[in-house]
């Protein structure tokens, strides 16, 4: 009950602190007016101890006791300033998060910049309820933190409110700030693990002469070597040949018969009826990945959209993105 109340209050405060800025354009400068300071649990204990010490000094009329308490009190105030300075003035930009599959953990790269001549120590960044990333920012330099967030559904996963805090230098005071940079990570549908076509052999490639399943040639069908080009997938390099010929020899790429010829179409409409949307997307994602692994070319047809045949990482991304955003974009 109390925890709930605290949680609610915290959310309220965070919302108020961010006000209308969410999401805000980068770079986000954590100006002094958006850095908040409160004692930590340890800081409260420290203050309480000082109070007891003060009572002791009064009771026994210990002049040096007053001196001690006042020195430590001053130290507490100075700790506030140091902690505040450690955070205030940091600016924040973002990097591009690598797309992930549903069920994986998205990692949002945040880049902290420090314009000051003083190192910023132990800045802690975290997303609500997530693990804490700690980083130092060198003087007049920058540092990158990867904020993890589990991807639970496909589509765009927006970066939630980021909390940046520090308890440096004494752990008695916590300075913190919120930032909500506009940043989203693309989440691909999770590829189906058991590909249905393996069992029922429904014709995903039915419109092809050589369905992937019935293919005897396929990518397994070695057709010779040619000179390596930078754009060739690494797993098609003839490593054994390279090892035999030594480091001075040019790399060779294995060629497979039918690779280019086997132009596949993965078609939404040809999946069995009765499958729901997510299952269809999962199956299509699996095919896309498998086809790329096999070095095939393929095209993707979704309702209202078709991606022409191609292969390579960019094509994989385009296809998976289309699957990820299926039904979300209009």
């Amino acid at each position, binding site marked *: 009950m109390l925890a709930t109340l605290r949680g609610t209050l915290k959310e309220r405060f965070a919302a108020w602190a961010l006000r209308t800025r969410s999401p805000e354009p980068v770079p986000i400068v954590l100006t002094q007016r958006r850095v908040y300071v409160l004692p930590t649990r340890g800081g409260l204990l420290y203050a309480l101890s000082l109070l*007891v010490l003060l009572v002791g000094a009064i009771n026994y009329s210990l002049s*040096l006791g007053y001196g001690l308490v006042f020195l430590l009190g001053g130290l507490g105030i100075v700790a506030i300033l*140091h902690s505040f300075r450690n955070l205030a003035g940091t600016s924040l930009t973002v990097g591009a998060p690598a797309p992930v599959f549903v069920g994986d953990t998205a990692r949002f790269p945040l880049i902290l910049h420090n314009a000051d001549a003083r190192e910023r120590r132990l800045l802690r960044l975290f997303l609500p309820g997530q693990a804490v990333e700690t980083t130092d920012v060198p003087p007049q330099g920058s540092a990158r933190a990867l904020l993890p967030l589990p991807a639970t559904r496909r589509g765009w996963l927006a970066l939630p409110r980021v909390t940046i805090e520090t308890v440096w230098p004494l*752990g008695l005071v916590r300075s913190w700030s919120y930032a909500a940079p506009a940043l989203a990570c693309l989440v691909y549908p999770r590829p189906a693990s058991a590909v249905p076509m393996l069992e029922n052999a429904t014709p995903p490639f039915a419109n092809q002469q050589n369905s992937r399943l019935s293919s005897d040639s396929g990518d397994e069908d070695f057709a010779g070597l040619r000179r390596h080009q930078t754009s060739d997938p690494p797993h098609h390099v003839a490593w054994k040949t390279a090892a035999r010929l030594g480091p001075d020899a040019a790399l060779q790429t294995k060629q497979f018969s039918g690779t280019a010829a086997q132009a596949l179409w993965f078609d939404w409409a040809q999946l069995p009826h009765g499958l729901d949307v997510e299952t269809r997307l999962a199956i299509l994602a699996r095919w896309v990945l498998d086809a790329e692994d096999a070095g095939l070319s393929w095209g993707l047809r979704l309702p209202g959209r078709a991606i022409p045949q191609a292969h390579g990482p960019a094509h994989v991304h385009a296809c998976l993105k289309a699957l990820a955003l299926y039904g979300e974009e209009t």
Partner: protein
Amino acid sequence: MAKKPERPVHPLTPAQTWWLLATGVAACAPLAPQVPVWLAAVAAGAFLWRAALAWLRQPLPPRWLLILVTLAGTAGVLVEYRTLLGQQAGVALLLVFMALKQLEARASRDGLAVVLLAYFLTLAQFLEDQSIPVAATMFGTVLVATAALANLADAQGQPLRLFRLAGTMLLQAVPFMLILFLLFPRVQGPLWGLPRDAYSGLTGLSDTMSPGTINNLSQSDVIAFRVQFDGAVPPKREMYWRGPVLTVLDGRTWRPGNATLARDLPYAPVANSPGYAYTVTLEPHNKPWLFALELPETLPNDAFRTSDFQLHARKPVRERQRYAMRSYPQVEHEAEDDFTLAAARRLPGGLNPRTRALGAGWTADGSSAAQRVQRAIDFLRNQNLVYTLQPPLTGQHVADEFLFDTRRGFCEHFAAAFVVLMRAADVPARVVTGYQGGERNPVDDTWVIRQSDAHAWAEVWLEGSGWVRVDPTAAAAPARIEENLAAAVPAGDPLPFLSRQGLDWLREARFRWWAINNAWNQWVLGFNPERQLELLTRLGMDSPDWRKMTAWLAGLSGLVLLALAAAMLWRRPHHDPAQRQWLRLTRRLEKRGLPRHAWEGPQDYAARMAAELPAAADDIRAIAALYAGLRYGNTPPDALAMLRQRVAAFRP
């Protein structure tokens, strides 16, 4: 709803363990001489144990063992002090906890507990001693504790960096400490009853006197009080600092009589006689009496006067107290009441038969009281009495044995024997204890009166003159009064260290040290509510009270905070010289209502400006080209000067 992440438990790193150990040792070591040996040994053992475990990277001892040791330590304290609540027992317990917390500290939470314990132990030191070295130790301990605290927050911190950080922060905290020290409204303690064993370490005159009481003090260099004369200084032989007056002889022991409260001054200064104004800074001695030159005319605050001319505070003096006094060595007495005189004639029966016979013999020839007093002084002088710090032990008849057998004694023997003799001769007499003389510190012109200056003398009532001081010791050992203890006792008697001769350079150094100490005592340790009011008034605060102090406190602290924050947070924008010129130009154009857009580079902006201001187009283009060249290209060395010139000449 995502749940809050678990509060992580950070196990202590080896470096943190060493820092905490250093903090513990720094806080405990100064207390070691005050606690029982076994406790110091237990604490040292615990520290060594922890150090060994850290060195060998062994796990901490099991919890049950620690609980057992804690219980044993607590029981030991209970046995030693018979309580757990007293001041000394409390300090001992803190020490036990600190030692065992070291062995139990696993996470950084425990680390904070160690640091806080260290603060409490530092405060505990002050109960015994608040001298300058102890204050220096305090800064040392706090420095180590702060560095340890910083290490808890930053496990990777290097020792040197941690020290520098802690040092910087403490230095920045000092202004706050000074302001708070000066302006925090002081409250006179205690807030509640203190444990019974508080102040047990204080020395001073007792309210009874038996052979050996004052002798005990004579070996002590501890300062009883300091005096600063305002104007004339009486000769040293006249410096009798009056303390407890003892009228009742009870076997071998002298006790105070039934003195009553004196509402008015029971004597008056003799007209035109010299008076001495001075200020006494009295060290706490846990007894109510205040010392003053004979005989005081004024009365300190919160004090009263008794009918035997003593000054009493309302409460035992438990902290350093400062009072201004005025005294007159020559006074006229009002008549003394019969009851007091009768008490001053009373002698217990059966004791000191020889002394009594001697005194009684003098009453037969009808001589006056004054003559009988003189006769007694002469008798003492002719008796070849030796003044010594090591008087032989005496039996029941103290005066008899001293006067006729051993003939060796300390001032208490002289005073007691003389009073017995006078009473036997039917002259009202009583013993006065206090201090005699003192030592002037030439550095700050303060007189220091030590426990070794404790003295006992006598007072006789002479009709017409009133109470007259007679110092029988002076009869036998005039040097004691004229010079000092060292001159009076036979060579070979052990003397308090500072009274020894032949250490002039050392004495000189000591005088300086005492002067510093005196200033410290007056201004730091003696900074009580009265002193605070006095100082603030002198600094110009009009009738200071806690409201004004708090307001000033808040205001000044706020100012310091602002100044510190400004110094720490101010960031000078860094521009290179070319950029500075370029910004000058854009500022000028901005005033014309043509600000540069955030996304515009110098060339784009220049092109736009040239279009907006065709008259200045050439200038603008030239400046932009120069600037772009300086910033991004390879330019001749005088390009900057040209840019500067052109920008200065540019008037859009």
